[in-house]
């Protein structure tokens, strides 16, 4: 009797998860699985072969570097923005906060186009820079600019809630001991942000790794120069090389899985504190 009840109990506790799996199967899990199925279609040898061409190696390296640089820049900029928005009071603060979060809502293609129209050879800044021989668009700099724009809200979104919740008493204590704003920030505020910074950076990194819409506009999609891994996937898919495209897609999914595992690990550790 007791056994049956435990089995019943087990089933009822598994039911919601089972139902979730069933719903997610056609929506998310099967499409993801098909990436891997197509990647392995030509066998493991073919997969390795299509992952070791010059184009793919460059695209992956380039994507990793851009993602790293984006995470670095936005870690600094995002933290600063979060600090200003959370710890200072000025008119228009709320509105500025909303505007800085807009990049997640604007279609990335539009971001790319507006960057082109500003920095491109026919754009406002672009025309001013041209005589100096500077031309950020269609170079790695252009790609970086686009990624910074598109992923900016992730860092801000991770850091600002932490700052909002941070007890002001510690800061006040620091001030009464004669610390200035900068000292307080580095010795009191920053240590509290450690895991938020890491989560935010990884989130930014992951989003930059998969960014497509803005990148295709500003990069010129040049192989061995500005072609990121998602652009390579798109080009190969357009050309009908589905196996090659999915090989890189599988690798990217794998990297993202690892990244998000780390994010969740740190987020969990953070909330336990």
């Amino acid at each position, binding site marked *: 009797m007791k056994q049956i009840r435990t089995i019943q109990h087990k089933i009822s506790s598994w039911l919601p998860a089972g139902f979730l799996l069933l719903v997610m199967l056609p929506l998310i899990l099967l499409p993801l699985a098909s990436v891997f199925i197509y990647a392995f279609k*030509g066998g493991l040898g073919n997969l390795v072969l299509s992952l070791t061409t010059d184009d793919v190696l*460059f695209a992956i*390296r380039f994507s990793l570097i851009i993602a790293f640089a984006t995470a670095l820049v936005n870690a600094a900029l995002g933290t600063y923005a979060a600090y200003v928005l959370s710890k200072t009071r000025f008119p228009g603060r709320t509105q500025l906060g909303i505007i800085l979060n807009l990049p997640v809502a604007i279609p990335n293609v539009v971001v790319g186009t507006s960057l082109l129209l500003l920095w*491109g050879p026919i754009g406002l800044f672009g025309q001013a820079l041209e005589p100096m021989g500077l031309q950020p668009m*269609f170079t790695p700099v252009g790609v970086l600019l686009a990624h910074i724009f598109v992923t900016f809200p992730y860092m801000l979104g991770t850091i600002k809630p932490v700052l909002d919740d941070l007890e002001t008493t510690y800061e006040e204590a620091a001030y009464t001991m004669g610390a200035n704003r900068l000292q307080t920030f580095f010795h009191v505020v920053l240590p509290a942000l450690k895991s938020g910074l890491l989560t935010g950076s990884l989130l930014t990194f992951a989003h930059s790794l998969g960014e497509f819409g803005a990148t295709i506009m500003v990069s010129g*999609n*040049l192989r061995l120069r500005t072609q990121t891994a998602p652009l390579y996937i798109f080009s190969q898919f*357009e050309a009908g090389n589905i196996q090659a495209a999915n090989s890189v897609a599988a690798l990217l999914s794998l990297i993202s899985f690892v990244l998000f595992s780390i994010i969740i690990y740190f987020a969990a550790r953070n909330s336990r504190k």
Partner: protein
Amino acid sequence: MVFAAMGLIVWTVWPWLPSQKSSKPQTLVLYGFAILQDVIAKEIFPAFQKKWHKETGRRVELVGSFAGSGTVTNQLIMGVPAQLAILSTELDVKRLQKAGVVGTEFRKKLPCQGIVNGTPFVIVVRPGNPKNIHDFSDLTRPGIRIVHPDPLTSGAANWSIVAEYGAALRRPGATVGAGKNLLRGIWQNVAVQAGSARAARTQFEQGFGDALITYEQDVLPQDKAASPRKLEIIYPRSTIFSEHTLVVINKHIAKEERQMIQSFVDFLWSEEGQRIFVKNGFRSVDQRLNAGNRKFGHVEDLFTIKDFGGWDKAKKDIIDQIWKTGVLKELKR
């Protein structure tokens, strides 16, 4: 884990480490319309690299980017650093001239007015031709689903429209309205539009639609393909022969690159270069070489854009007036 992260970082920046920086090769940047990707990246580029190295002892790195002809044209207008571009239609060349990207003088210096190669437009159907399609007129039957590239971004789509229109008019005993009627019938059945001919083929191969209108070159069976394409080519009685134009963007060519780029341009029209195109399914500008590919099909009545007064006139009369403001409006698309 720290070691894994360090390893990844070292691997990532490896090619840019000082020890890896050997002599910097010259580079050539070419933008091309979609179906050129395979032949340029895998055959023309490597052949030229070898030739250039043999002649001068120097390395040249070739950078290519491929998309629908209209998309490439937009990128060029936006200012991508292309030195050469091969476009599907002369329409796109004219757009570049209008935007001031290129002048008109470069074409006079090129062989064949800049036309590199060509290919006729064909209909592609499922194996065994289950819908019994033999000509453009069969595509107007109710229930046929057509995959067509999008005229906004694809050169192939513009060629296709003239092909469809022209095929109807050149039928013996055709009336004046025949071209428009055929266009209306076909576009009523267009189920999917893709950004480029290559993307349209990918969609068709994924199982969409009963018929696809595209370049013969893009659907000819390739020797090297692991699995033969599961499709069948139908040659219409009359169809257009598309001609693809090279564009030289002089303002992006530095003085020291001029010789190398001229040599590449010459290579495109050399017998070796043209033979590579023929091997890959393009028809050469040199008629003698076209016997080199036995897979080329026969078209009874092959016409060119000149038969319709050139692209300027065809764009105004056929694409804009008859197709865009006529057929599309009537079909409420």
